[in-house]
């Protein structure tokens, strides 16, 4: 007889912002095991990139994710530029860094608010999202857009940071620093926040390494990995920043790491504004890319983002493969869920900052037989009408 009770959470659930399903087995109030069922909204972006030119792909890839759109395009551009052997001007490298860090700030602030909401503290949500508006305003000032900035192009960036905007940006950074310091104070002092996050969703250093976790989740388990420092790209080599880690390995540690990264990001942004070299912002890139392949790594707000681009000499890529950070963290999430209370499930899931739009893969579910099959892209091409349910 089955002793544990199975509770399905999702695909539609107020605790999740995007469709995913968790089947948790519980024994009493504690979670024994968790089964993650993904890909409720597969969009076939990787396949679609093969039918578009490199420039058109920029706009498609930007829409992989609404939170870290710049991370995706930068990573893609790095890969394509590597195949082309293109030298990106200094000004463009700095601008890419600046936008990337602003994006990290808005993503981490967003996470902090959602984390507050998951543990029923809507006040934190309202405050952090108010401050997130400032970052969005700054991004709008530079690029004209608040979500999809469309700043990157192959060979550089599309817009320069105007001299007259710099003082406004610095002012915005000052305000942000003030509020970020306040949030650090709040999350280290507020008793109910500590009660809900300390010791919850523990992940040991060993497990984090073994299961190949990425980003703040790993750093909170005291593993010092950060692509910005380990395999530097854009302008990070010339800038001074430190990799934030925490030792506790729980949800609280993850919030400490993320708020610490906010401080570092603000520091990086200030440096960029001080040392902007000026000059050209893009190198002209040919429409056709010679045969070759490249892998590029990027430290997105949620962790390491990997792009693999293979070209065949035409103006369209032969294959683009995206390994988004969330995909690297599913395994550790299932690990972290073991042994937590049911009430802690939302905050533990949220602690890896899951971005489902980034990480959808294809799974076909045959509901009549209750069987799940992971399909390849090739099989998807042959997928016939009349079969029920793409899940």
């Amino acid at each position: 007889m089955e002793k544990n009770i199975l509770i399905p959470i999702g695909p539609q659930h107020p605790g999740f912002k995007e469709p995913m399903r968790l089947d948790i087995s519980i024994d009493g109030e504690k979670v024994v095991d968790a089964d993650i069922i993904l890909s409720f909204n597969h969009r076939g972006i990787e396949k679609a990139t093969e039918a578009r030119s490199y420039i058109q792909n920029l706009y498609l890839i930007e829409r992989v994710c609404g939170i870290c759109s710049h991370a995706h395009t930068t990573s893609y551009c790095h890969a394509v530029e590597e195949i082309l052997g293109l030298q990106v001007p200094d000004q463009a490298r700095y601008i890419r860094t600046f936008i990337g860090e602003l994006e990290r700030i808005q993503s981490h602030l967003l996470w902090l608010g959602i984390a507050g909401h998951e543990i029923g503290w809507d006040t934190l949500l309202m405050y952090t999202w108010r401050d997130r508006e400032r970052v969005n305003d700054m991004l709008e000032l530079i690029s004209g857009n608040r979500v999809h900035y469309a700043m990157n192009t192959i060979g550089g960036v599309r817009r320069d940071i105007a001299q007259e905007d710099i003082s406004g940006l610095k002012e915005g950074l000052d305000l942000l620093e003030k509020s970020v310091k306040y949030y650090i104070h709040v999350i280290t002092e507020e008793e109910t926040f500590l009660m809900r996050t300390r010791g919850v969703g523990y992940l040991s250093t060993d497990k984090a390494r073994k299961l190949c976790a990425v980003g703040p989740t790993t750093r909170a388990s005291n593993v010092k990995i950060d692509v910005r420092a380990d395999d530097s790209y854009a302008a990070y080599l010339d800038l001074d920043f430190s990799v934030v880690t925490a030792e506790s390995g729980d949800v609280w540690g993850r919030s400490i790491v993320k708020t610490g990264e906010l401080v570092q990001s603000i520091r990086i942004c200030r440096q960029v504004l001080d040392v902007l070299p000026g000059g050209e912002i893009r190198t002209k890139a040919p429409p056709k890319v010679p045969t070759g392949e490249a892998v590029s790594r990027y430290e997105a707000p949620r962790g390491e983002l990997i792009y693999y681009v293979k070209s065949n000499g035409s103006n369209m890529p032969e294959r683009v493969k995206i390994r988004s950070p969330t995909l690297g963290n599913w395994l550790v999430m299932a690990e972290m869920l073991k042994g937590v209370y049911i009430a802690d499930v939302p905050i533990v899931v949220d602690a890896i900052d899951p971005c489902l739009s980034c990480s959808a893969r294809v799974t076909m579910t045959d509901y009549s037989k209750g069987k799940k099959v992971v399909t390849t892209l090739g099989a998807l091409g042959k997928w016939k009408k009349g079969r029920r349910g793409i899940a």
Partner: protein
Amino acid sequence: MDSLAAVLYLILFPGFVFLLVFGLFCEWVDRKVYARLQNRVGPPLFQPFADLIKLLGKEDIIPKNVDSILFQYTPLIAFAAVMTPIIFIPIWSATALFPLQGDLIIALYLLSIPALALFVIGWSSVSLYPLLGGFRAATMLFGYEVPFILACLSCGIIAGSWRISDITAYLEMYPASMLIVIPGFVIALLALEAKLERTPFDIPQAETEIVGGVLTEYSGKKLAVMRLMDDIRMVVGSSLIAAVFLGGFIVSYGSISWAGTDLTNVINFLLYIAKSLMIVFLLAVIRTLFARIRIDQMLDFSWKYLAMGGIFQLFIAVMYIGILHG
């Protein structure tokens, strides 16, 4: 008192209509304070009323598998239970409408009916989330009920009566004795926050964990009744605390008049409104400040701190009586 007047009292003031209006007003105050503390604009004055009207007009769905009788009538029982204590609570003078010997116990009992009703609703809904919510509501009852009763009974001991009107009258006579029930006031306030299932104790309706909580399967009129029940529970709970702990802020009969009219009742009524609103305000501030705690942490907190504090308060009350009369 003739029966027609009694019926009018029950229906108009301080009965159903007054509670309805004041309850919706308090909901607005609560939401507005909550919003302003969160840097939001908050709802306009008539928003709670509009919500209620809208819900009343919505389709009322009874799921197929539910226990139809329990599902339909439990909200009404809960609603009636939370309205009744108002007749024991002094509103415009130190004496309530229909005071009884021991009405403090009755009021406390009636105010804990909703938690049981929520449990029954959760059970009869035959659905996962209401069931979990109902269990949580019932479990929480064991946490906050004891401290709440201990705190309220301390005042009863000081006044030497279980009658709410007597407690108010005593506090009116000796306003300084309000100082020694301050710990009890804090305990009762926190326990009331738990009773009303608001953050940090909104465990039975934790949206991110168990979706709609107990009321997941409810819609239309029944949901409207349950929401109104929540508002009235807040008003009656605050009024009870105001009468029992802040009873001293009341003026004796016939001492204030203007242009030949006796205004004491009016002043006292305004004082009652002010006291209740202050408590609603404090409840909203508590709601803003904290994150939701887990059910095990809530029980820990209730027994370790609230119940201990309640016993401490009881001890103080007994000492006070001993010194006064010994």
